């Protein structure tokens, strides 16, 4: 009897050891169970339950007290309930996953931002004939095209492997007699119609160089199906509207967002009638 129980104990200890090793996930081999619900069930539920069953069974078999048997019995019942729940729901309860899997080194996406955006931006001043002025990144090319409304287009240098070059477009237009809110309401509708898969992510009231304005952030797909984030800073002075539009590849926005804000912070809007 003792030999049989000792055999059970060895099997139980080995099984639990494999379960602990898998759960700890210290090596790629130990993370064999990641990715599939069946293997997750095996590592996180089946192995611990089977191991515990053998260990506890051997302890009882070697002569435990009644109260110990009760406690062990309750433990086994609880584990079996979890096993049945997991089998029925076809997924392992989230609380059963190890911490490294759930929070993956506790690295939160919020925390990572601190490291990436501390690059100081070298800028060069640019001023439009209307008097509107803002800095633009020094290494970007820029041009004042002969197009109505478009005051300047600035384009980042080509980067190998990047299929969308970040750019800044400034437009200046007159005749907004309906007021700021009407203008922006029309602008919102226009963006939804003109851009593929437009998704408005954020919209907030801001003040730009003392003028009421809005900042909007949205996502769309270019004609070549490249995902792009567009950040627009808009201000109205009398009937003249100023729109600064930053466009950047969707995954790169986080790298440039603080620098865009830095540029906007230095915008100068001419006072009414005071053109240089």
């Amino acid at each position, binding site marked *: 009897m003792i030999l049989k129980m000792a055999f059970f104990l060895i099997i139980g200890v080995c099984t639990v050891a494999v379960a602990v090793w898998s759960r700890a996930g210290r090596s790629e081999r130990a993370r064999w169970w990641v990715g*599939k619900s069946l293997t997750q069930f095996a590592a996180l539920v089946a192995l611990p339950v089977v191991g515990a069953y053998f260990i506890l069974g051997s302890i009882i078999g070697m002569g435990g007290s009644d109260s110990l048997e009760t406690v062990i019995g309750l433990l086994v019942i609880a584990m079996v309930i979890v096993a049945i729940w997991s089998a029925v729901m076809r997924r392992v309860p989230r609380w059963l996953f190890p911490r490294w899997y759930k929070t*993956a080194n506790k690295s*939160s*996406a919020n925390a990572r931002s601190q490291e990436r955006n501390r690059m100081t931006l070298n800028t060069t001043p640019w001023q439009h004939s209307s008097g509107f002025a803002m800095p633009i990144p020094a290494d970007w090319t820029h041009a004042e095209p002969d197009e109505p409304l478009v005051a300047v287009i600035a384009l980042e240098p080509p980067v190998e492997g990047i299929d969308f070059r970040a750019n800044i477009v400034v437009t200046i237009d007159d005749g907004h007699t309906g007021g700021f809110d009407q203008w922006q309401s029309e602008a919102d509708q226009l963006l939804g119609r003109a851009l593929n898969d437009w998704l408005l992510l954020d919209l907030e009231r801001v003040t730009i160089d003392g003028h009421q304005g809005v900042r909007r952030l949205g996502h769309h*797909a270019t004609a070549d199906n490249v995902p792009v984030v567009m950040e627009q800073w808009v201000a109205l002075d009398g009937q003249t509207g100023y729109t600064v539009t930053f466009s950047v590849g*969707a995954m790169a926005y986080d790298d440039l967002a603080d620098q865009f804000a830095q540029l906007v912070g230095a915008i100068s809007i001419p006072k009414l009638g005071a053109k240089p």
Partner: protein
Amino acid sequence: MIDFNTETGHLRLNADEFELLVDATSGIAKAKRSKALNEAGVFDPDVGPHRALALGLSAVLASMCQGQLLVGGPRNTQLHQVWMNAGAAAMLMEVEPAIYEFVTIAPGFMPAALARICRLGPRRDQPVDDIALSKRTANGLWSEDDKARGEAAREITSSAGLSPGWRETLADETWWTWDATVIWNGGKDGRTLRVLDSAAGTYAFDDGALQPTSATQIWRAITRLFPADGEIDSAR
């Protein structure tokens, strides 16, 4: 019951059927002969998966990173899974209880896809104060269990820093939570983002507290969930 539109590539199926499809694609003979997959036109034992699914399934089987998104309201949850490699990304979205839609997208569109699922967008207010959460409340808010989420939400109602808009939101049960986790390097590395959201404003959970935030910051955090080039082990 597998619902597959061979023209659009839209595929609806349950979790077992999806696992079967993945097994068949990875070459497991028994799965390849599955009647359900063969009859739905999803998998041909002589050819492989339907061409509309091949790219997405390649992302599942050879993913550089993978993750899950748990979206919970006061009385329901949806669990979505995502996979991504350099050439493709795939999502298995829970569209009805235990019914999933398998979608293939270009990797760069993954943040926008997640943003749509999480209903990220402008909010009428932005809360001001941090709200410290006990570990139990935090676990409850992002639990898969409806009851636990409801209890955690009720516990927050008594928090001093809560805005009037959020008090109303909690009373009306018009809030939702989501928890996105992305892992890579075989699960060794990864990042998590937990959010409590409503029309009354958005909180991100960090350092044991609900921290007021904006949709812009959440968008940036969503893109940061995914590994940068240097974070993927070169051996993989």
